[in-house]
């Protein structure tokens, strides 16, 4: 966790709004808008009374800390930021919840929807109306901040674009890729989307053919796999998070995504603790995370926005995905266990 020390901005809300109205609000980056439309006056007043905010997030500090610095400077609310991987964060909040510990306010991972509903408060903030409908929880316990599209990727020095399969059925015909195709060992969401799209019998057969023909290498960690494809260790990733492929591509590696039916989609989400010690600050921060300002900031790092008024980086990636059948796939913990077992049974036959 990192505590942002108060720097310069404990300015009164009225003064800040006044500056904003004059177009003189402090800039927080080259692309930062001059005003903060997400700065709801009523929420701000209530949030300032609470004074601080505790964020649990799986986003690295390089992105997360500057992001919440924008929030801190705009609101004067001190932010404590704890970064960890999804899985241990889930356990940690469960343990704290059972101990009735009021430990955190805002939860920002790709697994918020897997938390038991009683752990999350129901909320709705003004910016919700601006994000894609599929990124809104009908039960109002979480909202999508960025989109995680699932799509294959390949090393452009190892594979010609003209040789790429046009469907997953064609994958197994590329015997020359045997042992050079990788997939993350936890890609159960992709498997569910495959079986939903093709039907259980056909989908299973396609995957079995791929396993038999290409002997995919199971890897541990999506970014590690994206780097390995970029480095040429593997020629093709059977499935990959598009933003990570793009991230490695932006860094200069010869990696490119391509889209096949189906494209599984889930979200990096934000939720608020039912035991939040600072519930209004949490709502204000959630409103900020769904805002144009926040999503523009995240897009610089290759995160794909859930708002239509924010361009993806690189441009056109959302359009590329939308040309295919996009299946929003959000699993409950029980469903995830079931689909992981199915995945293991298919990819690690015993």
């Amino acid at each position: 966790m990192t505590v942002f020390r108060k720097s310069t901005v404990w300015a009164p809300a009225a003064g800040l709004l006044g500056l904003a109205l004059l177009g003189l609000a402090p800039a927080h980056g080259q692309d930062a808008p001059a005003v903060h439309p997400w700065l709801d006056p009523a929420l701000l007043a209530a949030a300032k009374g609470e004074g601080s905010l505790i964020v649990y997030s799986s986003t690295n500090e390089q992105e997360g800390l500057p992001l919440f610095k924008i929030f801190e400077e705009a609101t004067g609310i001190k932010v404590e930021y704890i970064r960890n991987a999804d899985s241990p964060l889930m356990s940690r909040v469960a343990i704290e919840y059972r101990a009735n510990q009021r430990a955190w306010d805002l939860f920002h991972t790709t697994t918020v929807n897997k938390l038991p509903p009683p752990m999350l408060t129901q909320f709705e903030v003004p910016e919700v109306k601006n994000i894609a409908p599929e990124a809104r929880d009908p039960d109002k316990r979480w909202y999508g901040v960025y989109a995680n599209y699932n799509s294959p990727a390949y090393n452009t020095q190892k594979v010609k674009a003209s040789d790429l399969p046009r469907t997953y059925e064609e994958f197994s015909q590329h015997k020359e890729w045997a042992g050079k195709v990788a997939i993350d060992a936890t890609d159960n969401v992709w498997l569910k989307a495959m079986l939903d799209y093709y039907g259980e019998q056909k989908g299973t057969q396609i995957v079995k053919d791929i396993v038999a023909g290409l002997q995919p290498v199971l890897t541990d960690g999506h970014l590690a796999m994206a780097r390995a494809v970029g480095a040429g260790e593997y020629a093709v990733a059977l499935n990959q998070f598009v933003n990570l492929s793009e991230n490695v591509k932006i860094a200069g590696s010869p990696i490119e995504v391509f889209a096949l039916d189906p494209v599984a989609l889930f979200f990096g989400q934000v939720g608020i603790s039912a035991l939040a010690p600072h519930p209004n600050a949490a709502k204000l921060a959630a409103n900020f995370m769904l805002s144009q300002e926040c999503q523009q900031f995240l897009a610089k790092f290759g995160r794909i926005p859930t708002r239509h008024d924010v361009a993806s980086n690189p441009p056109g990636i959302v359009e590329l995905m939308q040309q295919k059948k996009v299946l929003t796939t959000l699993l409950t913990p029980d469903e995830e266990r079931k689909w992981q077992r199915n995945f293991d049974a298919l990819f690690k036959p015993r």
Partner: protein
Amino acid sequence: MYCRGLGASLLPARNRTQAREWAALQGVEGLSVANDRMNGRFGFAATSRLAGYLKLSNFVLVTCVMVALWFVFVPLSALFYNAFTEDTGFGPGAFSLENFIEAYSSWQILALFRNSLVFALGTALTTFVLGGLVSWAVERTDAPGAALFHSLALLSFAIPGLLMAMAWIFVFSPNIGWANGLMKNAFGLAQAPLNVYSMPGMIWALSSHYFPLAYLSLGPALRVLDVRMEEAGHVSGGRTWQVLTKITLPLLRPAILSGMLLLFVLGMSSYEVPRLIGRPARIDVFTTDIQSAIIQTPPEFGVASALALTLLLVCIVAVFFYRRATRHAEAFATITGKGYMPTRIKLGVWRWPVASGIGLLFAVALGLPLMTLVWQSFYRNLALPFMGSDAPFTLDNYKFLLSYPIFLAAVKTSVLLAAMAATIVSGLTFVMAWVALRTMPRFGWILDAIAFTPIAIPGVIVGAGILVAYLMLPIPVYNTIWILLIAYVTLYLPYGMRFASSGISQIHRELEEVAEVAGARLGQVFWRILLPLLAPVLLAGWIYVFVLSVRELGASIFLVGPGTHVLGTITLTMWEEGGSYGAVSALGVIQVIPLIVIVASLRWLELHVQRRGEATAAPAAGAERIASSE
């Protein structure tokens, strides 16, 4: 004589006559001299022993053991509780055996176990051979470069396991490994001659990382081995190999078995190499399944715990057999009241060839991966040594790290925590090992096994268990550095115990008996006899625990709080979330630097202690000569 000087000469006598008579009966040279030098109060050993039980030192001793047992109890109870209750995904539920059914219902578990055994045994043997060679050259011979090898042996340790495995992939991957590329070009081969994605590749990758442990375990034992015992063997007509097999190796048995036991269990519980090298090769081991359960969202702690119980059983059985094999402790004591003189074998013309051989070993085991990491750290994307690259040389990775939010604060926290954890572990296990070996020779193995159990419990389960316990208990350590310290001490008790246990095995109990007869209190025995004699072993253990603590990850991910980020969690962030190959390599390189400083400082301290010991021994020897002339 070194030992005499440290032992008897520093003791205050209570009953000079009694001590002198006892010494004459026991044939302990120099005790009379020592007693003559002592001016103190008189008393009787028997009454002092009785009174001793009520003394502060005993209270401290019992407290140390109780504290250590508490440290072990928390994760152990979490392990059993998780294993035998329904895994609801958000905490344990009702009593259930479902976790065991899920964990063990497939025949695949046997294949995993077989792979784990082969991997662990192969690693233990390879590591032992590598570490043994280095120990012998550094501690027992006059081969040049001993100080350099001593420091180098510890360097590979500082590199996080994930990065070490990554480096070996860059060297010996059949697709991108630069060593394979060079060999293919040189010999015109169509296929890569070596494949890191194999069982030998896994064993080599882990052995190259862990062989400092074998060195740390064997080195101190070899250092204090009384060369006169070997000389006696030679004088009696024994050949070199006979002396080696009949005298040297048996005398080193506690250290060898202790090191092998630790290495075997480490191999069984190792995760990084199976993750990066084993999994792509489809060589799954026991920990692969444990980790698969843990990385689910939410983690399946129940299944992971049920699997970990097998590791625990293996550890307990291993400790039991270790204690059986070393139950006649006196037979392995090379530090006795009769004194010893550490001397080195003179290699003559073989000095440089031996040094070159050890240098070559380091060049391969440490040089290849370290050079790869250093090279890669100056490029953003994959750029391997000798393979040519169009990418520009850059310092950006280091700039990125040094400007990374919380990086420097995490370095500071990690070093502070590691120093505290290493000191506490060394102290606690010193006491526990003494209790296990000296006061309860028959059942001491139980205490030994209890202290060893955390090694079989995955770090994340230790972290989760500690989080649960200290959220419920009225001990305000949640979200502070202290909860991390508790976790680190718990996790590394087994390592400290192995070092302390094998070290105490080498000290004959007659030294303590001499002290007791001479009227020394228990605290004085610890402080003025055992501690100086065990200093090299404890220092080695301290270094080991320090390095492990600096890069601890499993428990930390549950326990970091405001301002207590540690290096391990940043390494994980780099690996999982952003950060190029260059950035993660730079992180590995940066972690080596503080270790170089610390190892050099400790080496200086060690040499200082040794010189002081020799200086103390000199007057004692002089006093002895005076005594014998009386």
